């Protein structure tokens, strides 16, 4: 009896580990767009070239009307965007987000982020 409980526990443990491995090892494709977009009837215009990085990885430069592709692994991430605004001032925007495993690839719209729109991260 005790043995079967231990065995059951181990099987359950393995299943839990499976889910953990799945969620922490899952890789997502993130497209970073610096283009003019229209989301929910609002148009966000792309104005600035920018530099971004995700989870302390190398900074990537993204020019206007361009799209870049990055990969992230696991549920929790930090997106950091730096650009120089029309006043010549350095602006840094830092956003934390987490992903659930049902999402495969996502788009970060820089103009939306700069404008402070809520739907800056959408499914592709």
């Amino acid at each position, binding site marked *: 009896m005790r043995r079967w409980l231990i065995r059951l526990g181990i099987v359950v443990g393995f299943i839990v580990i499976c889910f953990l*491995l*799945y969620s922490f*090892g899952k890789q997502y494709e993130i497209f970073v767009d610096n283009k003019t977009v229209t989301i929910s009837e609002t148009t966000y215009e792309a104005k600035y070239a920018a530099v971004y990085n995700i989870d302390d990885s190398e900074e990537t430069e993204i020019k206007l009307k361009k799209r870049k592709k990055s990969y992230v*692994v696991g549920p929790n991430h930090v997106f950091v965007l730096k650009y120089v605004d029309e006043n010549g001032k350095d602006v840094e925007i830092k956003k934390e987000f987490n992903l659930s495993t049902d999402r495969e690839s996502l788009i970060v719209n820089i103009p939306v982020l700069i404008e402070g729109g809520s739907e800056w991260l959408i499914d592709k």
Partner: protein
Amino acid sequence: MNNKNIKKFFINNAVPIMFIVLSILAIPLAGLSGEYLIQEMMTRLARYLFLVLSLLIPIIAGMGLNFGIVLGAMAGQIGLIFVTDWSVVGLSGMTLAIIISMPIAIILGWIAGVALNHAKGREMVTSYILGFFINGVYQLVVLYGMGRIIPISSNTMLLPRGYGIRNAVDLENIRGCLDKLIPLKIGNVNIPLATFLLVGVLCVFIIWFRKTKLGQDMRAVGQDMEVAANAGIPVERTRVLSIVISTVLACIGQIIFLQNIGTMNTYNSHEQIGMFSIAALLVGGASVAKASIPNAFIGIILFHIMFVVSPRAGKTLVGDAQIGEYFRVFISYGIIALALVLHAWRIYKEKERARMMFREANSSVSSESEKG
């Protein structure tokens, strides 16, 4: 006396010695740098050790060389297909692949064990054919079932027709995840330390396993099934378990192998695994009935030196690299044939020797009676 011992040593280790001599002759011909060779050996040890070690337990149980490790390899590949499809990456991807392929390996190992119990005395040829048969089933599942019955979401993995996995699966996501986990570089040689640590754990496991009750039972069954059965050891079950363990280890071994290579030939990667692993083990001085961990180490090094060197040496010798390729195929199969013949020959010789002893004993009896 000493002379006799030396002679015995040479006879018992004829195969490794032959390979050392061949390597010494072929290395200068190939003209490869020492550093390159050492790097290659490191890579190949990491790649093959786990697989080769998975052969040891059925040998203990007296079931010979388990050509059925390809079953484990197939299970491992199915796990890899899934994690790649789910895009689970890195070490967690690899671990997940191991966990989900393990039940498949256990089931396949069980089937193999039961089949081999029905073919006592010709386990090796049966396990070989079994590998082919399960390969057919594997093809059925992977080539026709996946994407149809078994959901596969990633289109890049499927054939253009919409179902069936492509011939090559890119394992970019887990490539080297274990090998490079603990980076270590000595000189210009990269050492896949984490892989070696894992192999070390396996070695400890095998050594420990031999001391368990199950290990002891396997040794007993391997030496004399009838006596073991009379002592109440469940012979058939013990044999099945040895094959199951071997299959599961081979499954892990194949995943380690593929994380090193980085791409998977869906329909070929597993096919040659059995043959190469067995040939390597035999080159290391193992036989059908006796194999150890050092045999595996030495065997992989010697066999793969031959592997790396022979095409280049062939080119130098006859101006064609192809001949070296064929040479290594010849060596792989030839060494297995040789080991099997030696094994059968040795059994025959032992019988002969027992008879000679009897004869001597009797001639002394009859000479005594003549005196009396």
